[in-house]
């Protein structure tokens, strides 16, 4: 026991002595939460748009007023000829342009139909699609108000409810994502680096020649980062509840339990990496390329897995963060309990056991 405590004490000395690693460990989660929460939002709000009103009649003015009134848009440019639209797009002044044809009101009145052109900047296809949908909705609203004067023979209306995330907040997606990323980064990368560093410094030889049991060595390396990771989970949850208004709908103990499991997964991955390499730089590189990149691409956090080609979808199953992401999303946001996510938990636990066995076997071989 004394062996374990002196070792853990030494690990914390390393961590607190190095201001850079301290910064990565404690400031990075907060920074990421704030960046994702407030800067990198893909919600549409007050987007600058331009209008070319060729009609300038009663109907077109009402429509423009309604666009202006919506919280999604802000009319920054009013054009008088089509060439100006092109220039405004190229100068990046607007993301969307609306062209209203001449005689808009009389076409509506006499032909019962009119055409409005929407031009969107599709360099960012997601934003373009969203803007188009929102603008069409505003136009449809206007159409409904004038239709009120007549009774349509048939009409089907849709009643939409956005379940679990009624305000369509991006935070619901990125909080579990950031959590997965941070836990992986700290537990896997920092652990592998701290073990490999002992090899680089040759202190590993002394440790291996000492009566210290390999199990104690591994536990002493893992426990400090486990503690730090759990502190980070608390910080992330605290920020998401207080600053981002994202409540934890499910059991907080289940959330912590799953985080504990995922930290163990990450630690066993870190142990595996430290078995492969003897240099800190390689360990860092493998952690970033081998763990962070698949997490970003294949966990479903940035890109929906259902939209990927089938081989990628199959590949995504071996990324542990994918399962963590699913469980946390279900528990935190949908408020589901253990009975609904036990399959995913089992998969994650199985992966962890697999990694632990492999790295333990390899570690024993290194001792031989």
């Amino acid at each position: 026991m004394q062996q374990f405590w002196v070792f853990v004490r030494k690990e914390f000395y390393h961590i607190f002595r190095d201001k850079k690693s301290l910064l990565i460990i404690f400031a990075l989660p907060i920074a990421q939460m704030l960046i994702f929460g407030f800067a990198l939002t893909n919600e549409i709000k007050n987007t600058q748009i331009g209008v070319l009103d060729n009609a300038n009649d009663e109907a077109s003015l009402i429509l423009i007023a309604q666009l202006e009134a919506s919280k999604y848009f802000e009319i920054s440019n009013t054009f008088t000829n089509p060439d100006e639209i092109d220039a405004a797009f190229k100068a990046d002044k607007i993301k969307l342009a609306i062209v209203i044809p001449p005689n808009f009101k009389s076409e509506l009145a006499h032909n019962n139909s009119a055409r409005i052109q929407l031009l969107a900047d599709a360099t960012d296809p997601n934003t373009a699609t969203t803007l188009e949908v929102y603008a069409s909705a505003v136009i449809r609203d206007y159409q409904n108000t004038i239709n009120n004067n007549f009774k349509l023979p048939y009409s089907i209306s849709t009643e939409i409810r956005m379940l679990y995330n009624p305000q369509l907040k991006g935070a619901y997606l990125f909080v579990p994502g950031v959590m997965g990323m941070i836990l992986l980064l700290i537990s896997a990368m920092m652990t592998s680096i701290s073990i490999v560093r002992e090899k680089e410094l040759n202190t590993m030889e002394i440790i291996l020649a000492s009566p210290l049991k390999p199990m104690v060595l591994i536990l002493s390396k893992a426990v400090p980062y486990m503690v730090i990771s759990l502190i980070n989970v608390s910080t992330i949850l605290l920020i998401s509840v207080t600053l981002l208004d994202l409540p934890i709908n499910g059991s907080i103990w289940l959330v912590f339990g799953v985080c504990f499991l995922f930290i163990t997964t990450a630690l066993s991955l870190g142990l595996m990496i430290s078995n492969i390499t003897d240099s800190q730089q390689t360990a860092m590189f493998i952690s970033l390329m081998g763990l962070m990149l698949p997490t970003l691409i294949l966990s479903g956090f940035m890109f929906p897995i259902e939209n990927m080609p089938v081989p990628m979808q199959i590949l995504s199953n071996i990324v542990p963060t994918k399962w963590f992401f699913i469980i946390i999303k279900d528990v935190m946001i949908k408020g589901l309990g253990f009975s609904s996510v036990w399959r995913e938990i089992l998969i994650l636990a199985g992966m962890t056991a697999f990694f632990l066995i492999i790295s333990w076997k390899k570690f024993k071989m290194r001792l031989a």
Partner: protein
Amino acid sequence: MTDKVIITENLTKKFGDFTAVDGISFHVNKGEIFGFLGANGAGKTTAMKMLIGIWEPTSGKAEVAGYDIYRDMENIKKSIGYMSQRFSLYEDIPVIENIRFFGGIYGLSRAEIKEKSAALLHKLNLTAESKTLVSALPLGWKQKLAFSLAIIHQPKIVFLDEPTGGVDPITRRKFWELIYDAANEGVTVFVTTHYMDEAEYCDRISIMVDGRIAALDTPAALKKQFNAENIDQIFTHLARGAKRTAD
């Protein structure tokens, strides 16, 4: 109780096709300073690492402190101390924390660590420096500290792998005084070196060439046997026949 604390018989280590240590047989007596000489790449570090349990031998037998290296490594590890080529202290933590750590992993209790660290700091004149980072210490002091930590748990045998590498002659001389102190307290010292003047300080020496032991005896007897004035001449004579080049 045997007087031989290390016994090897045909001890061999192969890395793929390369035979690093080629069937060496020797013994080390209790309480002696045993010099393990050889050019770089001759296999002395590999041989030592088999004895301290870092590498498993390919074949052959060996006993350390009366325990078999295949079956009883745990007991061996409790009986030995080891200092590696690069002193291997934690540079970014204070002297006292290094003492605590190594005392702890060698299995000392909290009370023992407290008592030993005070005595050790006093002996090395480092009491005022106990909170200094190891990185701020001069090389000679680091080396003394590393050695003192390797014997903090009073092992039966201490293994020193080129302990004086890169240090000036005066500091080396002072370091050897520490080794003599330890030997006088009954610790058997197994030391590898490639400084031939240091070989004269040893009770007995072996000279390894190409993974084999080419000569083994007291320095005086070897000089007589090879009709040489000093160990350096013997070494040069033996090393001339070496096929391996230094790595």
